[in-house]
Each structure stands twice: as structure tokens, then as C-alpha cells.
């Protein structure tokens, strides 16, 4: 079975069957990753471009390595140092890449919906690698893959996501993906960092981190940015850490053997305490490995669209 879609723009409209297919394929890809010869022919003859309008280390590197392991022709474009810096529009950039025969464009963009606009104007498949405050589907898929590996499935899991939900595309994609797969998602954080109308979403929201973490199978801390303080959203990183930061005491309230996750890059001592970030329950590095496998799977499935 293959994906019928041209693009992966978000998990909001992705079915449980599709997610299962991606995660199953990613599990196979992971075997490849752990072998001594990582090279495969899954993407031979396919050209893949990463188009990043925002800085990124792990996501970009993860896509790049994934495409290279699978023998794709891979190229990178950064907004600075390209025609984007000369004022080229997103649609024109997309058409240019199309004209060069690109099969897949991996885009990260500070504005929500940019991948959707690109997808409408390109023949190439589009993978959203993070758009504004909207979605980051491959991150949620790698999170789900990591959880599934540990728990054998996703149904019935309680996943607490803590921190700056408002600005987090990771929180949104995880909400869609996890709830589609039958998990329960709880969001916690200061009210100024919760999205408007969160009560109408398929998540439980709470002011109290302890309530969110209690009996959770997974505790996911989100990155808090210094700018949030300057913008008046939170008073200080000190108070943030003391009230909302994930530390050993709070993690101990989760189920025994609960996983600690973080999409990275971490602010140690702010949203997550160093000792637990490096502790037994942390799967933060495993998430990164899953990231390569998931991206291999998504790129493979999208480039084989229509095949059976």
C-alpha cells in the first residue's frame, strides 16, 4: 500500500490507516538505519530539495540524511543566500524548483499555510517541515513512532504536552495525530501560552502541570523562547521553570516507566531539568533516530504515490 496524497501538509486530515502505514514503513527504515551499510535504493533517481525559510539543525539534517541514505539527489536552499533574499515570491520559487524536475520539496516557513500555498502551485510533492504556528507533521510522526516502539501501540496512552502550546506546531500536529490514533492528549502551560478556544479542541487543557503529568504515559516538554518574556507572555524564565518546568518530582507523578520527550533544541534548566533530560526515562535522542526513519518513510511513500 502507498499513500494516495501528493503532499504531507499536516496531520489534521491524515487518517489512522495512513499514520499506521507511515509508522510501519518507518519501522522498516529503522532497520536500515541501524545496519552497517545505510545506503538503499528507495529514492534512486528522485530529486529532493529542502527549502528552509527558518533556521533548523535537526529537522533539516534529518531530511537531508534520510534522502541521501535512500540515494536521492538532494539539494538545500536557505532563504538567506538564495533568490528568496532577492525578493522572489514563494510561488515563483516553487515553480522554479518544479521546472528543475524536483520530486519533493521539504519546506519550513515562519508563516502558517506557506506549504499549502506552495502545494497548490507545484507539481512536486510538498512536505511541511514546520509552518508558523500551524503544523510540523513529521515531528509528530517521529514522536508517535518513539511512543509506539516503547508501548507497542498508541491507543489509550495519556500524553501530557507542557509549555508554549500557543506557538507550537509540534503540539498541534501531535494533537491531531495522537487523537486520531486513540491516545488522550493533555495540554498544560500558562494561559498566555495556550491557543484561543483550546477548549473546543480534542484535547484536555489545564493550568496545572501536575494534573497533566499525573498518570501520564508520556511527558513532552516544549521549548520556551526568551522572546516570550520580552513579549510579556510570561514574567520570567525562573518562574516558568518553577511552575511549569518538568523536573524529577513532576516526572515521578507520571506512570512508572513514562517517557520524557522534547522536540529540541532544549533549554536545559528551563522547560526541562538537566538531570531528567539525561535520565533513564528520557527518549530525546531516540526521537532523533525516529526522525530520520520517519522522514525516510514519508519521502519514500510520497514518491511512490499511485504505486501499489
Amino acid at each position, binding site marked *: 500500500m502507498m499513500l494516495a496524497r501528493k503532499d504531507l501538509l499536516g496531520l489534521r486530515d491524515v487518517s489512522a490507516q495512513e499514520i499506521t502505514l507511515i509508522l510501519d514503513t518507518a519501522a522498516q527504515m529503522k532497520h536500515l538505519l541501524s545496519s552497517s551499510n545505510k545506503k538503499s535504493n528507495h529514492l534512486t533517481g528522485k530529486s529532493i530539495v529542502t527549502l528552509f525559510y527558518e533556521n533548523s539543525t535537526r529537522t533539516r539534517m534529518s531530511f537531508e540524511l534520510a534522502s541521501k541514505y535512500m540515494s536521492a539527489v538532494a539539494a538545500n536552499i536557505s532563504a538567506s543566500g538564495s533568490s528568496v533574499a532577492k525578493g522572489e*515570491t514563494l510561488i515563483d520559487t516553487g515553480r522554479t524548483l518544479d521546472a528543475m524536475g524536483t520530486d519533493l520539496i521539504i519546506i519550513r516557513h515562519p508563516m*502558517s*499555510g506557506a506549504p499549502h500555498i506552495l502545494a497548490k502551485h507545484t507539481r512536486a510533492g510538498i512536505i511541511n517541515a514546520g509552518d*508558523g504556528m*500551524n503544523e510540523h507533521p513529521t515531528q509528530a510522526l517521529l514522536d508517535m513512532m518513539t511512543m509506539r516502539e516503547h508501548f507497542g501501540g498508541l491507543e489509550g496512552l495519556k500524553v501530557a504536552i507542557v509549555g508554549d502550546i500557543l506557538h507550537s*506546531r509540534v503540539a498541534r500536529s501531535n494533537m491531531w495525530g495522537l487523537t486520531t490514533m486513540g491516545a488522550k492528549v493533555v495540554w498544560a502551560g500558562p494561559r498566555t501560552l495556550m491557543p*484561543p478556544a483550546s477548549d473546543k479542541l480534542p484535547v484536555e487543557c489545564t493550568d496545572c502541570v501536575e494534573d497533566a503529568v499525573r498518570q501520564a504515559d508520556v511527558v513532552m516538554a516544549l521549548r520556551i523562547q526568551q522572546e516570550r518574556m520580552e513579549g510579556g507572555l510570561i514574567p520570567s524564565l525562573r518562574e516558568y521553570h518553577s511552575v511549569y518546568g518538568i523536573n524529577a518530582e513532576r516526572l515521578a507523578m507520571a506512570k512508572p516507566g513514562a517517557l520524557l520527550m522534547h522536540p529540541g533544541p532544549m533549554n536545559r534548566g528551563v522547560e526541562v531539568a538537566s538531570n531528567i533530560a539525561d535520565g533513564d526515562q528520557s527518549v530525546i535522542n531516540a526521537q532523533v533516530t525516529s526522525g530520520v526513519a520517519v522522514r525516510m518513510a514519508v519521502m519514500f511513500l510520497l514518491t511512490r504515490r499511485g504505486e501499489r
Partner: protein
Amino acid sequence: MKKLLIHGGTAIDPSRGLYEKLDILCVDGKVSEVGKGLSYPDAESLDATGMVVAPGLVDIHCHLREPGYEYKETIATGTRAAARGGFTSVCCMPNTKPVNDCAAVTRQIIETARAAGAVRVYPIGAITKGEAGKELTEVGELKAAGCVALSDDGKPVDDSRRMMLAMEYAAGFGMKCISHCEDRSLAADGSMHRGLQSTLLGLRGIPAAAEEIMVAREILLARELHVPVHIAHISTKGSVELVRWGKAMGVQVTAETCPHYLVGTDALVTEIYDTSTKVNPPLRTEEDREAIVEGLVDGTIDCIATDHAPHHIDEKNVEYASALSGISGFESALGLSYEALVASGHMELPRLLELMSVRPAQILNLPVGGIAPGAIADLAVMDIQTPYVLDPSQFISKGHNNPFGGMKLTARSVYTIVGGNTVEY
């Protein structure tokens, strides 16, 4: 002597309580005779059988973009689009380049409109120089040059004291301030209504309070000073309630809303991120929409204005957050308003026509067409029976930015008559 005989139509003049099948003879820019079975073989004849003949629509809020943004719209194209929409008079906002903040720019607009315009154009001058929110414009000179009101539309006057002084100073010249209500610290860099839909799309939201705080401020300033104020493009339920409160206190507050707030909600903004839905103030919720309809029905909101805001396709064919705000509205205003208010049973046609002609003209003290001997022969002949599908790509306006393409509508203007002459467009 120019004679035009409009025959066979149903004449509706809301200001005169007229609703009857009557022929209308226009001579030299005025209506000279109204009656049944008129026959003037020497007059140009216009067959209005099966149609409605009404006072030409009056729009007290539009953007003609000239001077400075002729690539978006010109006075020539904008007024033709207006004529096609049934408008015979339009008031253009001053956010041109240069801003219409001095008599020279006002005169240029008026002269261009006289030479190239298809309908009557009344400029609105800026409240502050360059719409920068600081120094007052020379209100006396703007008025003498032909400005009919003042507004920094597109931007609010952030500073409350400056707004108070502007309203007070302008009142001395009989000039009304039209306020674009937006607390910019709250609206910040939002690009749609703040609510569930903005959360679902990851777009930064503009809270309803960003508008309402300033609506409240203007009402309080008008109360303090005993001067009039007009609130532009109301989009929220809270604003309707505030205006209702202001009127109940006896404050001289008037208000307008726009056809897009009668028809559209934030549900139109979807995963497609269609930038034609981006407008400021943004499309709000169904609850807001219903409150605005109710506000028009009970007279809290005084009139409908288009806020016609044409943009170039390149300014819309970008990321949602980067796209400019605005809807090209002249050519859909009547059809959308009719659908939302009359076809849906909220009001009768004469009341809608009042909201789009007589009432807005009263607010800015403008001449308006009428159907009685001596009245100005500014008329619109409308078809309110033949269904059609709105197609913004066929707009005369240079701006095709309109999110209601594909909607089935029934009302449209077929002939527009300005000063007794049928406008060619």
C-alpha cells in the same frame, strides 16, 4: 435638453415611501415627471420592465487608490466598477500616495474624477498628516477643496487625546471624523479573527476587543465633546452593542458595516489559506454576523458601505500573513447584501435600499437621487429576479480579490444613471 424616460419598472424610493410601478422622466439631470404610461418620443428610452428603479447607491467608504496606487485601481476603473455595482456616488478614503491630507491632493482627485470618473466622487481627507496619527490636517482647507469627511482609514488614530482634539477641531467646520477602530497593540500582527479557526490554522488572531475598545473610546469622546462621530466597518457583536449603548445615551454616533460581514465568517478561512478572505477588520464569527444583521434591522448600524479595497494579484498571491488586507467590493455589494438581508427575510427591499443610499448620504450630508419631480436623477435600475453566480474574475475593478466567487446571488444593478445619463462601463 437631455431627456431620459425609464419605463416599465417598479419605482422604489425609500425616502418618499414610494413603491409602485411608475415611469420616470429625467430632464437635464433632474427627475421631471413620475407617472403611469408616460410617453415622450423625443426622450431616450430605457426599458426597465421587470426591474426595480431606485435611488443610486451611495458608498461612504471605498478606496479608489489614485493617486499613487494606480496598479491596484484608478479613479476611472474604480468608478466604473462602482457604477456597475449600482453606485452613483462614492467617497474615497485618503490612504493614497501621497495621502489625501492637503487641498492639493483633494483637488487632484476631484479633477481626475471629473475628467475620468463614471460616478460622483467625494474625497475624504485624512485626520492627521500622512495618516501618521500626529499633526492635524488643515481641515478648513480640505473642506473648501471638497472633502466631505475626515478619516485616517486603514489606520486608527492611536493617541486618544489627538483623536479627541481632531473630533473637536473638525466639528467646528461641520466635518465628521470616521474612525477606523483598531487597537494596534491588540491587533498586533494578526491576520484573521482570534478564535477557534485561527487556532486550527495556526494564524495569529485579531481579538474582537481590538475593535471594540476603540469603538467605546470614540463613543465616549463624542459624548464628552457633544460632537458626532462615525464608526467605520463594524465587524463584531460587541461593537454593535456599544453603538446601541451610545445611541441610547444620546451620543451622536453613527456606524456602518460592510457586505462581507453580513455574508462571511472566519469559517471561510480554511486550510487553503485563501488570501481573498483576508480583510481588516477580519471576518468574524457567526454570532457576530447575526448581531450585525440585527443591528442593521433595528437601526443600530446606520448604513452599509463597501470598504471596496482592490489589490493587485501579486499582493494577494503570497503567504496569508504577508497578504494585504481588503476585498474588492463594489461589484458584489448589492448582491451580497440582498442575499443576507432581503432574500433571507430580515428586511424588505426598500429598507435595504435605504441602508445603501439615502441613509449613508444623510450621514455625510451628500446629495442623493430620488424619484420625484425635482430630485437628482441619480438612479439605479436593478434586476432582483435573475439568479447569477458571482464571478470576481469578471469584475471591472482592477482588484479581483473577493472571497465570494461562486456564490449564487439574485440582485444586481443593470443600469446606473448619474445626473440623468446612463453610465457606460
